[in-house]
């Protein structure tokens, strides 16, 4: 387990065949587009598995999650910017299993 990682740490782990779990502020993923649904909290409140990063559209890279908090969370696609904001709230914590 480590903190202060970046997206390349996740990518390298996945490319090496590893598994990655990160702690995030899930409200930013689930309700991030709402102007009226937010909380004062800025800590991590959920763990998700990152299963891939999709750079096929360079203008809008997507992070692919297994998110148990979302009924459609298996393979959930989240814009990289939104993911980074949610991940930052956990000080970019990551558990990598090789």
């Amino acid at each position, binding site marked *: 387990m480590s903190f*202060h990682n970046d997206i390349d740490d996740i990518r390298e782990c996945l490319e090496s065949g590893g598994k990655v779990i990160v702690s995030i502020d899930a409200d930013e993923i689930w309700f991030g587009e709402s*102007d*009226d*649904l937010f909380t004062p*909290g800025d800590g991590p409140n959920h763990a998700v598995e990152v299963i891939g990063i999709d750079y096929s559209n360079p203008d809008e890279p997507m992070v692919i999650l297994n998110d148990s908090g979302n009924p459609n969370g298996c393979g959930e696609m989240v814009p990289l910017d939104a993911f980074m904001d949610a991940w930052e709230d956990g*000080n970019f914590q990551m558990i990598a299993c090789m």
Partner: protein
Amino acid sequence: MEQTVFIEQVKKNLKSNAFFLNCKIPMGYTAGFPILQVRNGSLCVTFPYLRYKTTGVVDKTLVYPIRYMITMELPTEKIVLFEDLEYNEKFRNIDFRKPVGYFRHEEIRQYNKARYKALYDELMQEYDKVINSLIYCTDYSAEDEKRMKELLQLLVEPSLLPMYKALDNDFYNKYLAKG
């Protein structure tokens, strides 16, 4: 002397502090508005930890009681106290599993996410001003103190005020008590 303490950075550093991690505060708890106090002649900051549970309904996010508190000396960021309030006799009548209110409360219901964030950031800057004035004798005016009071009284959840009062009556009387 140059201002060197930023309360948001102190809070951020805490998230990956080894002592803090060993306190095993469950995931989902987040730091509330900090309490400033002088202990043993040193300026200390106490972060109260509580949780919010989003229900998916606007203004019906559940606010739970403050459950943990962690106190650090400034500017060293040395942790001097951690407490699980469930084991504090003063809070024996609190049911920590039961929500005490909703977010957003009435006085801030008109503020969207961006406006709330702007007010929150302004309040954190007021914390920085008072902290640095106490440590480094930087400028601090009566206007700053007035604005910090206004912002705290606006943003702190009314349902949490009794706990703030119980945690630190001096801070409560200085910044949170109305009238």
